[in-house]
């Protein structure tokens, strides 16, 4: 096989973003005083172009670059989620960078590189491509996490993420090596082929390799017991970056995980089902229980994002078409609601102090009624109450699991939703049911943040009431995965 122009066309979204990233690095060098909105606008245009090509490529299914990368509905679907996440993050970042005096053009370039990494993870049909994508993403995020160089939490965040991320990469690479050793190929289709022939399923080498892969991805999606980094990293990273990690990076981890699990057809083995079952139940429960005790909103959202990884894992375990489409729907909804929630934090923070404690939200409804309303929408959606996207997403995930016969896992899931309700409501209580304290009101935010919050809130309500189109798209996508 050789590389054709068509290959470049089908991989246009990450290609555009990568080129744009380099262009921005150069632009930042040549025009150091380039006005901030113009860079952000450029990034948004690039993301729009990537989105356009993702939609253009919808429905194609072909292996590119000698089978290292595929372009199919799965990769396009995830590309759309990543682009939305990146665009919302950029909108939030303009304000954050301005307030924190962090205005460097590299920031946007690194966001773009991270997005490219995510896209490669979702499009990789060869474990090495997946690994390259993961590394591109991780290294970008190590830098972004420590972007506030003078802040000790940021340094801790970056360093911790780097150490644990390095471990995760190690696990992943080791896993790839074992899989390669067991099957003679790191190509996912070859892996699927050799597993379908049945002879290698009880091969301990392959099993060990797959377990190590699961651990590697487990770090990225922050499931228990690989979740320890999340709260500290989110707390120290600039808020938009934390939002990006909790949504985009998680989605990329799930994309790769799904690809590998489907290729390896692990659900044919009841031990895998049981293991993932336990992981999902423990992740949901632990995340929610610890979140109950959090006073710091960023840490609360970190633990909530761990819990959400558990819910999404339920959809993965369901391992049917509903399960796969519900995972995508969940990730899309989660992107909106979580970036929205982090966006509110970013909006209310400035350089002197971040609005991190629940107490900072006291009486927000009186001071900033619209911001409080948006935050309430995000909280109700995270808690999974209709008519929001969060409810529909949970409904689909749990529905898929009921269909697959995992009734008890679903019961654990809904009881967890109940637990989570307490802390999400706590935020709303602070905003609406307490009088404002005497802290100084935060300085005004740029309209870009307001735009991001509006988009997120409307998307949540829209997906909550009329989820049909997106759902059918994802069902179509899941059907193509077989």
């Amino acid at each position, binding site marked *: 096989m050789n590389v054709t122009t068509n290959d470049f066309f089908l991989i246009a979204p990450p290609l555009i973003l990568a080129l744009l990233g380099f262009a921005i690095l150069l632009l930042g060098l040549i025009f150091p005083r380039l006005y901030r909105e113009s860079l952000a606008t450029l990034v948004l245009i690039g993301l729009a172009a990537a989105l356009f090509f993702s939609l253009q490529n919808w429905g194609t299914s072909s292996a590119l670059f000698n089978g290292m990368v595929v372009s199919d509905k799965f990769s396009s679907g995830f590309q759309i989620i990543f682009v939305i996440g990146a665009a919302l993050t950029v909108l939030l970042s303009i304000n954050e960078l301005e307030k924190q005096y962090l205005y460097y053009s590299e920031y946007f370039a690194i966001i773009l590189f991270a997005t490219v990494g995510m896209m490669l993870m979702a499009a990789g049909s060869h474990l090495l491509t997946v690994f390259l994508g993961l590394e591109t993403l991780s290294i970008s995020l190590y830098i972004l996490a420590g972007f506030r160089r003078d802040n000790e939490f940021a340094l801790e965040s970056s360093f911790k993420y780097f150490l644990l991320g390095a471990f995760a990469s190690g696990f992943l690479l080791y896993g790839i090596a074992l899989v390669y050793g067991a099957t003679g190929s790191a190509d996912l289709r070859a892996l699927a082929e050799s597993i379908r022939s049945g002879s290698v399923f009880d091969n301990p080498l392959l099993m060990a390799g797959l377990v190590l892969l699961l651990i590697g991805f487990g770090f990225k999606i922050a499931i228990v017991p690989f979740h320890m980094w999340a709260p500290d990293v989110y707390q120290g990273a600039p808020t938009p970056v934390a939002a990006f990690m909790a949504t985009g990076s998680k989605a990329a981890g799930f994309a790769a995980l799904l690809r590998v699990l489907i290729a390896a057809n692990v659900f044919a083995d009841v031990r895998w089902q049981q293991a993932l079952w336990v992981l999902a139940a423990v992740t949901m429960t632990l995340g929610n229980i610890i979140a109950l005790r959090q006073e710091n909103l960023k840490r609360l959202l970190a633990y909530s994002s761990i819990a959400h990884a558990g819910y999404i894992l339920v959809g993965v375990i369901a391992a049917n078409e509903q399960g796969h489409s519900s995972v995508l729907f969940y990730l899309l909804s989660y992107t909106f609601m979580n970036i929205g929630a982090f966006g509110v934090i970013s909006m209310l923070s400035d350089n002197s102090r971040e609005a991190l404690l629940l107490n900072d939200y006291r009486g927000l409804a009186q001071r900033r009624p619209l911001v409080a309303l948006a935050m309430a929408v995000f909280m109700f959606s995270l808690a999974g109450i*209709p008519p929001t996207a969060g409810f529909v997403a949970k409904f689909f995930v749990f529905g898929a699991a*009921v*269909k697959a016969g995992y009734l008890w896992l679903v*019961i654990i899931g809904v009881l967890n939703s109940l637990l989570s309700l307490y802390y999400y*409501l706590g935020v*709303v209580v602070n905003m609406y*049911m307490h009088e404002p304290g005497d802290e100084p009101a935060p300085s005004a935010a740029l309209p870009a943040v307001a735009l991001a919050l509006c988009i997120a809130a409307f998307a949540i309500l829209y997906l909550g009431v009329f989820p*049909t189109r997106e759902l059918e798209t994802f069902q179509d996508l899941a059907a193509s995965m077989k």
Partner: protein
Amino acid sequence: MFDSLINEHFLSILIFLPAIGAAMVTLMPSKLQGAMRIVALIVTSINFLLSLPLYFNFDGGTAAFQFDENYFWIPAIGAGYHVGVDGLSLLMVLLTTFLTPLVILSSWTEIRRNLKGYLISMLLLETGMVGVFCALDLLLFYVFWEAMLIPMYFIIGVWGGARRIYATIKFFIYTMAGSLLMLVAILFIYFSNGGTTFDLLAIREQIFPIQQQLWLFAAFGLSFAIKVPMFPFHTWLPDAHVEAPTAGSVILAGVLLKMGTYGFLRFCLPLFPNAAREFAPLICILSLIGIIYGAWVAMVQPDIKKLVAYSSVSHLGFVMLGIFTFTIQGVQGGLLQMVNHGLSTGALFLLVGMIYERRHTRLIADFGGLARQVPVFTTFFMIITLSSIGLPGLNGFVGEFLVLLGTFLTNKLYAAIAATGVIFAAVYMLWMFERVMFGKLENEENQKLRDLTAREVTVLVPVVIFVVLIGVWANPFLKKMETSVDHLLRSVQQRAAVAEQREQSRPRANFSAPPIEGAP
């Protein structure tokens, strides 16, 4: 053209008109408080007037759903926007549209802080409530059922009393605890039905194996029992009722509690008839405990609002008892009692709110001898008290009598115990009335008490009209529901028999893990 639009989308208009009103209020500047109140009042009043043809055009001769609307909503999973009313829901819809404008009028001066948010919450709440009573699609029902919690949560939490935050979180989490298990049950039903539809009418065709019925009934029933609330699940109610602002208490008692009993009638009985019979003794006993316990606890309350709150536990016990006698009298009495409780307890909360607004206390000990000072107030209080304790000639009597009759036909002991509940009700209500209204007017602050204003009288008069109307002439109301109730009970009987037959013809295998069709 306009006519046909209204005729074809009658229920949708009833459901979404308040939401449109909420949007209008949202767009108004916050300073125009008076105008916002008037808009909210007009919108809800129009909704009530629009709902009247529902009553008059409703054909009591058929058990089929009327004013039916059925559209695709999420076709990918077979969820539809299917609404309709029958004899079970008709009066509930009317009760909702009737009470909402009254509570908005009643809170005319009570709510001043963040009025806009309050009116928006009230209007959205009405959308949710009417939606719950009209929804004929399980998913749609669930969405309305849950979505309605959000405005209520804000109404209690923002405009409530001193312990409002505790009360509202308790209310929210209790209700969610039940509904989430109901959600699992809904999903189970959906997939055991082939995973094609959430439509109640389609699901009603299916008869579940008895073992499954028991689990499903438990999941649905827990959710409804918390809402009713039945005896061991009632602890959220006194907190929520006492801390809520007057309008919130009225809506809670008047409408929200009925959703629980309505849920039993709409879903638990027809879908899981065998389980309903299996659970009936338990539910009857819990209802009896609720009746007696509620009455006893009400008797010793020093706070009038709390007294009324506990009396709700007792009254709703009657409703549940009536429903689970499976007699036409019992169910009809239960349904009528749902309306009656909405009227009389709603009115009691209104009256308590009126006196609280003047005196900022609700303790019985702070009052005494009010009869001379505020005669109009006392008169209304008297009528409503008598209605609440079931005096013949007023509404409460008809419902309670039917419930007791139905109970007597099935179990004389239950009827005897329930009847003592009626006596206790008379004791705690009349004793409270005596301590508040009669005796000497000693407290100086009470001597300055003003009597009801014209606005407050306007709020109460419509309620009193219905209290008397149902009391002397309940027949038209009973006629509207009779066919539906009869149909319900018949289908319970038939379907239970079919399920039993199938059970017997089936080899006695293990039912521990019911397989779902279509599962991989």
